[in-house]
C-alpha cells in the first residue's frame, strides 16, 4: 500500500499547477511536509489549504479534489486524527468507483483506521466491501483473514470459517501463508470441539513445513488427551507422532524467527506486519509449551496410553522397555508407568515369565509405590495366566489380606474365586462366590449365580447347577447376554442327562425370548443333537439344514453334525450335496475354506468309488490351488483330486493322466512363475506321495528345495509343519526359527506336539534346559491324546531326572503309565526309567519291584530287559560291598 503512496507523492510533486502562487505554495508545502514524514504539520497545512482555497473552482475540479481528499485523509490518519481522516476517505470513496486508481488502497486504509479506532462494525463493512470490490488482489486473502480473526474474537466460529477457507483458496496466498491459515482453521475447529476436523487441517500441512511442525507439536498433547477421552485411541496414536521436545521446538522457532519472510517492497509491509502477528502468536504458544516442565513426561504417558488402547501392545512394550533402559530425567520420572505398561503388554502376549520378572523388579525398585497393590494383582494374574493357579491363589490371598480396604477388593475376590474354579477346587470357588454374593451389589448377583452354576457343574451336582443357572437367567438385573448364556448352560445340562421334557421347555423359552440371540445356532445344534440321540434323525436334519447357509464357525459346527448323520445313514448323495453347498458358501464369500467338507467329499468318493466334483466346482477349486481364491487346506484338496485323478484330468482336458506327473508339472510351472505358495503345496504333496512309496531321498530333496525357495510365513499349516520338521531333521540353522514360527502361527494345530518335541530336543542340545522342558511339559499337560505324548513323556522324565528333579520325573512317568493304550515297548521303557529313578533316589525296594515286573512282562525286549538285569546286578553288588 505504501508503494501506492510513494507513487502518488511523486506524481503530485511533479505536477504543474496553473493556480495562483499562494494557493500553489500552500499545496506544495503540505505535500512536501507529508513527504518528509511530518504528518501532523502536513495535516495542519492541508486543513488550512482547504479553509483558504476550498471553494476555488480549480480546487473543486475532480482530479485535484481526488488528490486533496486522499492525501489529507492519509495525513490525518498518520497524525492520529482518525475521525478526520476517516471523513476524508469516506468522501473520497463516495466520489469514486471501485475501478478508480487507489480505490483498493483507500478502502483498505479506511477499514484499518476503523479497526484501529475500535469502530469494528465500520471496519467489517469496509473489509466486506473490499472483498466484493477487489476479489482478485493478493491483499484480499489478508482481508478474509482479518475478517475471520474478527469473527473468531467474538467466538463466531461459523462466520469465521468461510473467510479462512476463502483465504486458503486464494490463488495468490503463498505456501507459508497456507500453512498458517490451516493452523488457524485447526484452532477454530478445536475451539468448537470438532477434533476430527482439527486433525484433518493439521494433518494436511505440508511435510517439512516448520510452521506446520510447530503447530502440530503445540496442539498434539491436548488433541491426544481429548481423543483418548472420547475413546478414539487409533487417532490418538496417529497424532502422538507429532509430539516434540522443548529443545527442538526452541531450535525451530529461533530458525523461523531469524529467517521469517521479510518481503521486499513497500506494498508488502502489511504482509510482513501480519506475519509478525502470526509468528508472535506461534511464539507465545511455544513458550507456554516449553514452560510446562511436565510436557515431555505427559507426552510419553499419552503415547503409552494411546498405544495400549489401540491394541498395539508390541509397540507399547518396546516403548516401555526403552524408557526403562533410559537414563534421561524424563525416563526416570516415568519408571513406574513404564513398568505397568510393560507388565500389561507381557500379559497380552502371554509372556508370563517376563511379566513376573518385571513385577519383581518393580516391587524391589518401588516397594512403597501407591500402585504397588495393582502391580501385585498383575503378578498374581501372571501366575494364573500361565496356569500356575497354586501360586496365583497364594499371591491373591496375600494381596487381599494386605489390602482389605482397597477399592478393587471385589474385583480381586472375583478373580480369586475364578482361579479357584480353574484350579479344580470348585468347592472353595463356590464358598468364595457365596461370600461375594453377600457383599456385592445386587447388580452383580446374576453373574455370581452363573459362576456358582459353573462350580456346581464342576462338582457334578447337575440339579444344583440348573437351579443357580436358572436364578441367573431369571434375575431382574441379568443382562440379555448373561440370560442367554445361562439358558444355554441349562440346555447343555438337560441334554447331558437326556431330560427331554425339561430341554424342550427351556428350548421354547429360549426361542421365544431370543429369536435373534447370539447363541441361536448353538442352541439349535443342541436341539438337533438331542433329536439325533433320541433316534429322530429326520427331525435333526430338518433342524440343522436352515443353520448351514452361512460361512461361519457355528454354521460349520451344524454342518459337521449334519454330515455325521448322513455318514451314519450312509446317505452319500446328501453328504456330497451338503459338502458342495458348504464349499460354495465359502467360495462365494471368499473366506478360507474349512477342512471338513473336503474330508467328507474324500469319504464319499471312497464309498461311491467315483469322482464327486462337477466341472464348475472343480474349476473353482483348481483356481484356489493356483492361488487365485481364498485359502484352503491344500493338502486335503489335493488328496481329493489325486484319489480320482483319472476322471478329473479328463474333465480338465489335461494330458497328465498320472497324478504324479501332474503334481510335478504344476510344481515346476508355479516355481517358474514365482508363485511360491502353490509351488510349495504341489511339491510337498508330491514329496509325501513319494515318501509313502518308500522314495524318502527324493521326497526329502523336494522338501529341502521348497525350504530353500519359499518364505516360511507364506505357506499354510501343513506345509509349514513339514518345512520345520525337515529343517529340524537335517539340523539346518534355521530349524529353530521355523519351529518357533510354526508354534506362533498355529497354536492349536494337531502338528503342535510334534513340533514342540523337535524344538525341545533342539533347545536341549543348546543347554536351554528349563525352556526345553517347558515344551515337553506342554505336550504332557495339553496334548495327552497325541501320538507324541508317550515319547515326549519318557524324554521329559529323563531330562527331569538329569536335572535333579526325580519326584517330578516319577510323576510324569506315572501319568504316562496311567494311559491305557500305551504300547508294550513304551511301557517297558517307562518302567525301566522308573526303576532307575527309584534306585538313584534310595528307594531300592521299589526299584527291584519295577525291574522284576519288567522282566516278567516284557522279556522279549532284550535291550530293555538287559538294562533291568544290569540295574539289579548293580544293586546286588552295592549291597555285597
Amino acid at each position, binding site marked *: 500500500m505504501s508503494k501506492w503512496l510513494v507513487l502518488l507523492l511523486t506524481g503530485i510533486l511533479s505536477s504543474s499547477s496553473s493556480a495562483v502562487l499562494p494557493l500553489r505554495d500552500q499545496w506544495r508545502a503540505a505535500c512536501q511536509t507529508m513527504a518528509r514524514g511530518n504528518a501532523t504539520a502536513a495535516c495542519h497545512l492541508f486543513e488550512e489549504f482547504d479553509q483558504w482555497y476550498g471553494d476555488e473552482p480549480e480546487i473543486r475540479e475532480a482530479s485535484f479534489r481526488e488528490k486533496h481528499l486522499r492525501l489529507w485523509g492519509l495525513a490525518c490518519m498518520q497524525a492520529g486524527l482518525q475521525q478526520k481522516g476517516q471523513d476524508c476517505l469516506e468522501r473520497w470513496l463516495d466520489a469514486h468507483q471501485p475501478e478508480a486508481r487507489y480505490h483498493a488502497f483507500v478502502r483498505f486504509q479506511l477499514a484499518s483506521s476503523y479497526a484501529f479506532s475500535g469502530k469494528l462494525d465500520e471496519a467489517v463493512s469496509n473489509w466486506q466491501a473490499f472483498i466484493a470490490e477487489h476479489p482478485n488482489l493478493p491483499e484480499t486473502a489478508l482481508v478474509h483473514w482479518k475478517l475471520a480473526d474478527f469473527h473468531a474474537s467474538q467466538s463466531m466460529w461459523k462466520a469465521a470459517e468461510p473467510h479462512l477457507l476463502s483465504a486458503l483458496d486464494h490463488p495468490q496466498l503463498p505456501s507459508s501463508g497456507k500453512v498458517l491459515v490451516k493452523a488457524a482453521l485447526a484452532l477454530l475447529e478445536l475451539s468448537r470441539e470438532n477434533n476430527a476436523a482439527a486433525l484433518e487441517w493439521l494433518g494436511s500441512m505440508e511435510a517439512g513445513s516448520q510452521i506446520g511442525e510447530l503447530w502440530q507439536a503445540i496442539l498434539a498433547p491436548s488433541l491426544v488427551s481429548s481423543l483418548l477421552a472420547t475413546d478414539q485411541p487409533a487417532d490418538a496414536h496417529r497424532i502422538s*507422532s507429532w509430539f516434540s521436545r522443548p529443545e527442538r521446538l526452541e531450535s525451530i522457532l529461533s530458525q523461523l524467527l531469524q529467517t521469517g519472510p521479510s518481503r521486499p517492497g513497500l506494498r508488502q509491509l502489511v504482509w510482513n506486519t501480519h506475519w509478525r502477528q502470526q509468528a508472535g502468536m506461534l511464539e507465545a504458544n511455544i513458550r507456554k509449551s516449553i514452560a510446562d516442565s511436565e510436557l515431555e513426561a505427559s507426552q510419553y504417558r499419552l503415547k503409552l496410553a494411546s498405544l495400549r488402547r489401540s491394541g498395539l501392545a508390541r509397540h507399547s512394550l*518396546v516403548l516401555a522397555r526403552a524408557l526403562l533402559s533410559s537414563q534421561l530425567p524424563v525416563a526416570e520420572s516415568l519408571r513406574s508407568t513404564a513398568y505397568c505398561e510393560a507388565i500389561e503388554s507381557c500379559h497380552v502376549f502371554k509372556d508370563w515369565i517376563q511379566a513376573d520378572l518385571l513385577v519383581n523388579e518393580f516391587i524391589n525398585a518401588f516397594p512403597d509405590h501407591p500402585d504397588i497393590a495393582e502391580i501385585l494383582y498383575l503378578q498374581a494374574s501372571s501366575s494364573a495366566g500361565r496356569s500356575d493357579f497354586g501360586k496365583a491363589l497364594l499371591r491373591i490371598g496375600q494381596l487381599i489380606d494386605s489390602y482389605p480396604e482397597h477399592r478393587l477388593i471385589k474385583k480381586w475376590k472375583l478373580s480369586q474365586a475364578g482361579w479357584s474354579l480353574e484350579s479344580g477346587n470348585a468347592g472353595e470357588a463356590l464358598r468364595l462366590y457365596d461370600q461375594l454374593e453377600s457383599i456385592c451389589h445386587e447388580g452383580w448377583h446374576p453373574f455370581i449365580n452363573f459362576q456358582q452354576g459353573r462350580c456346581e457343574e464342576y462338582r457334578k451336582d447337575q440339579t444344583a447347577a440348573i437351579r443357580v443357572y436358572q436364578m441367573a437367567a431369571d434375575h431382574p438385573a441379568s443382562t440379555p447376554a448373561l440370560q442367554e448364556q445361562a439358558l444355554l448352560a441349562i440346555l447343555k445340562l438337560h441334554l447331558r442327562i437326556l431330560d427331554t421334557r425339561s430341554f424342550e421347555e427351556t428350548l421354547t423359552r429360549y426361542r421365544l425370548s431370543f429369536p435373534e440371540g447370539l447363541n441361536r445356532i448353538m442352541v439349535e445344534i443342541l436341539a438337533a443333537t438331542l433329536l439325533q440321540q433320541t433316534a429322530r434323525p429326520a427331525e435333526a436334519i430338518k433342524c440343522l439344514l436352515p443353520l448351514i447357509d452361512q460361512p461361519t464357525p457355528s454354521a460349520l459346527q451344524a454342518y459337521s453334525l449334519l454330515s455325521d448323520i448322513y455318514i451314519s445313514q450312509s446317505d452319500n448323495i446328501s453328504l456330497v450335496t451338503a459338502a458342495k453347498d458348504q464349499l460354495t458358501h465359502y467360495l462365494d464369500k471368499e473366506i478360507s475354506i474349512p477342512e471338513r467338507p473336503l474330508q467328507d467329499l474324500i469319504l464319499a468318493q471312497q464309498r461311491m468309488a467315483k469322482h464327486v466334483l462337477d466341472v464348475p466346482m472343480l474349476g473353482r477349486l483348481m483356481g484356489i490351488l493356483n492361488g487365485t481364491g481364498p485359502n484352503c487346506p491344500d493338502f486335503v484338496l489335493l488328496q481329493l483330486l489325486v484319489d480320482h485323478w483319472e476322471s478329473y484330468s479328463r474333465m480338465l482336458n489335461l494330458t497328465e493322466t498320472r497324478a504324479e506327473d501332474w503334481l510335478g508339472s504344476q510344481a515346476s510351472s508355479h516355481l517358474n512363475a514365482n508363485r511360491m505358495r502353490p509351488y510349495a503345496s504341489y511339491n510337498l504333496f508330491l514329496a509325501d506321495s513319494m515318501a509313502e512309496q518308500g522314495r524318502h531321498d527324493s521326497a526329502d530333496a523336494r522338501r529341502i528345495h521348497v525350504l530353500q525357495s519359499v518364505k516360511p510365513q507364506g505357506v499354510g499349516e501343513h506345509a509349514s509343519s513339514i518345512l520345520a520338521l525337515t529343517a529340524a531333521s537335517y539340523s539346518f540353522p534355521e530349524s529353530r*526359527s521355523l519351529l518357533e514360527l510354526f508354534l506362533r502361527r498355529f497354536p492349536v494345530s494337531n502338528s503342535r506336539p510334534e513340533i514342540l518335541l523337535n524344538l525341545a530336543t533342539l533347545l536341549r542340545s543348546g543347554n536351554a534346559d528349563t525352556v526345553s522342558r517347558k515344551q515337553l511339559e506342554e505336550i504332557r499337560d495339553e496334548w495327552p491324546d497325541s501320538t507324541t505324548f508317550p515319547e515326549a513323556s519318557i524324554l521329559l522324565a529323563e531330562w527331569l531326572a538329569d536335572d535333579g528333579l526325580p519326584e517330578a520325573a516319577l510323576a510324569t512317568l506315572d501319568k504316562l503309565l496311567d494311559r491305557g493304550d500305551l504300547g508294550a515297548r513304551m511301557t517297558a521303557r517307562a518302567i525301566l526309567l522308573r526303576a532307575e529313578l527309584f534306585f538313584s533316589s534310595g528307594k531300592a525296594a521299589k526299584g527291584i519291584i519295577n525291574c522284576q515286573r519288567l522282566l516278567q512282562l516284557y522279556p522279549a525286549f532284550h535291550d530293555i530287559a538287559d538294562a533291568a538285569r544290569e540295574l539289579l546286578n548293580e544293586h546286588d553288588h552295592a549291597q555285597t560291598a
Partner: protein
Amino acid sequence: MNFQGRITDASSKNLQISNTLSGQSPLIGIPLAEIREIRLVGNSPSTGLLDELAKHKALLPLLDSESLERTLVRIQQLADNENWPELYQWTVMLIASNPPWEVTRRLQLWKAWACMEMKLFDEVRRLMDGLVSEWDAMEVPALLCWLMAKLEIRDGERMKALYWSLLPSLQIPAGNDAFADDLVTLSREWLSDEFQN
C-alpha cells in the same frame, strides 16, 4: 597469530603455505606442533575437499569445529553415493584424529554402516555393541536402529529386530528420515507376520 594461505605441504613436521596476504612473506613454514587450529576456507567441489585433505592427513586433528563439520558433510555424501570403501577409510582416518566425543560416535556409526554394506558382519556387531551402550535408548538415531534391526534379522533374533524397528517411531520426536521410514515398513512386515500367527 593468524596466517592464511594455500597449503603446499604438510607431510613433514612443518606446514608449508603459500601466502596470499600482503605484508607477509610469500612462503611460510610453520611447525605443526605450534598450530592451535586450522580453518578451511573457500568453496571446494563436493569431493575436492576430501581429495585435498587426503593429501594432508596430518592436518585432520587440527581442524576447527566448523571445518570438521564441513568435512563430515562431505563424508556423508560418500554414503549418499554408496561409496562404502571410501566412507570406511574416511571414518577410520577421522576417528584416528581424535575428534570430540559426539563426532567420534557419529563416525563410528557411519563406519558400522559402511561395514554393513560391505557385509563385514562381525565387525558391524563389534562396533554396534559399543555404540548401543553409548546412546541413551530414547535418543538413539534411526540409523543405529536400522543397523541393529538388520543385524538381528540376520541372526534370526525376531523380537530384538522388532524392538529396533519400532523404536524410532516411538521416540519423541518420532524419527522421520529415510531409515525411520524403512524401519516402519520393516516393522509392518514383522507385525503382519505376527498378526498371521
